[in-house]
């Protein structure tokens, strides 16, 4: 419908917008969103739609506003102008606690609670949502298997795990209440290259099965090409362009081209690997 390669226009013609809303409401929608803190403009005029089941990668260097964009979705931040809508409802009008519990959130280094076992970390949201204990137990087991961990891991504490295992627990925890949306902020950024590669490919195949709506922040073009169904390139608080991986590597956009040059050869194959 919106060609993956099209630049996102801030204002669509009325008729087109109407047609689109009839076809499908985007799961996440940014409408001319700006965010500033203490007089510094972090994000300006962002308009972007995330469709059901896609993995939208926010790519950009440090300070480009990608993490800010992500935090606007689960209202860890609120826009200073414009509107963020999740499942067709403006964030400002939704119950913030309900909103967050319906969105999985994975961050770098996992952000696991160090005083909780793996089992309690993964079962966190189900438990505060007062699921019956046996259902939590079954769900935790199921999730650990899903992310490639053995049930014996359940009794361990985060400091007894490797970085890769912690990150798997982080993903399991985000998936616990089966949220439709998953926000991932450089989830594999702190891992060694081999573990990162492993987790990327596992996440890719997991996503093929689960079809969550994912917003994924990274500064790694290779990761973006491999995991993203579309890549939103950000620079200095603005959205530069939104492209599909195969288009990105061939793009004539100066920022995209600069990124491709910086990452060098072999990117085509990375993009194709993701698409397979």
């Amino acid at each position, binding site marked *: 419908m919106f060609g993956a390669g099209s630049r996102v226009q801030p204002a669509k013609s009325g008729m087109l917008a109407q047609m689109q809303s009839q076809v499908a409401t985007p799961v996440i929608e940014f409408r001319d969103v700006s965010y500033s803190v203490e007089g510094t403009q972090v994000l300006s005029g962002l308009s972007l739609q995330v469709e059901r089941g896609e993995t939208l990668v926010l790519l950009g260097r440090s300070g480009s506003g990608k993490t800010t964009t992500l935090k606007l979705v*689960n209202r860890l931040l609120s826009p200073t102008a414009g509107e963020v809508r999740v499942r067709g409802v403006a964030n400002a009008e939704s119950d913030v606690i309900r*909103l967050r519990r319906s969105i999985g959130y994975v*961050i770098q280094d996992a952000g696991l609670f*160090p005083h909780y076992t793996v089992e309690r970390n993964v079962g966190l949201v189900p438990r505060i949502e007062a699921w019956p204990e046996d259902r939590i137990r079954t769900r935790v087991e199921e999730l650990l298997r899903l992310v490639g961990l053995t049930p014996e891991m359940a009794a361990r504490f985060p400091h007894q795990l490797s970085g890769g295992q912690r990150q798997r627990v982080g993903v399991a*925890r985000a998936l616990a209440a089966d949220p439709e949306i998953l926000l991932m902020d450089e989830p594999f950024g702190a891992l060694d290259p081999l573990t990162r590669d492993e987790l990327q490919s596992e996440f890719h195949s997991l996503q093929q099965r689960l079809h969550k709506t994912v917003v994924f922040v990274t500064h790694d073009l290779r990761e973006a090409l491999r995991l993203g169904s579309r890549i939103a390139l950000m620079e200095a608080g603005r959205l530069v362009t939104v492209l599909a991986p195969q288009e990105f590597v061939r793009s004539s956009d100066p920022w995209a081209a600069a990124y491709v040059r910086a990452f060098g050869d072999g990117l085509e194959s990375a993009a194709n690997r993701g698409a397979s």
Partner: protein
Amino acid sequence: MNVFHFIVLNHEQVLELTLEHLWLVAISTLFAALIGIPLGIAIARRPGWNKPVLGGANIIQTIPSLALFGFLLPMPWLGERADRLAILALTLYALLPIIRNTYTGIRGVDPAVVEAGRGMGLTESQLLFQVQLPLAGSVILSGVRVAVVISVGLATIAAAIGAGGLGEFIFRGLAMVDDKVILAGAIPAAILALGADFGLGWVERRLRPQ
């Protein structure tokens, strides 16, 4: 007759004064914790409040203890009973380490962990009771431990206004110029301080996150 003979001969009184001493310290520390921990939590959440609150607690610490007991003497209700006065003064002195450590402990919790919790939809009170307080627990307890050790020493001064405790032996010994009597108060007080320090230190290590 050495100090141990003296203690054995007067063991009933030593025991009574030790228990009195312990009571003064326990009650005042309890009050200080009941006031200081919530206050520490409050200033950790509202950055503007920490300077005036910690500053105030700091000023209390600089008042010489004997003078503070004297200042409090004319107060209504409190002034009627020496032990009430002593408990109030000890509570005031114990506030600073408890407030400061609660504040430091909560601010010291990894912000990424707090944000992950918030992002997953924990309410502010769930965040406080399930994440921040458990992770700050050992730091808060070490503030309580410092407060207890200070209080055991300070409580000896309470005898000057007639509040009882092991200070009675110390003041009596001073008046009689008798080392034995002074030590009969000082030794049990030192043992109390060391015992509290060791016991709370043990609990603190158990609470410390890995």
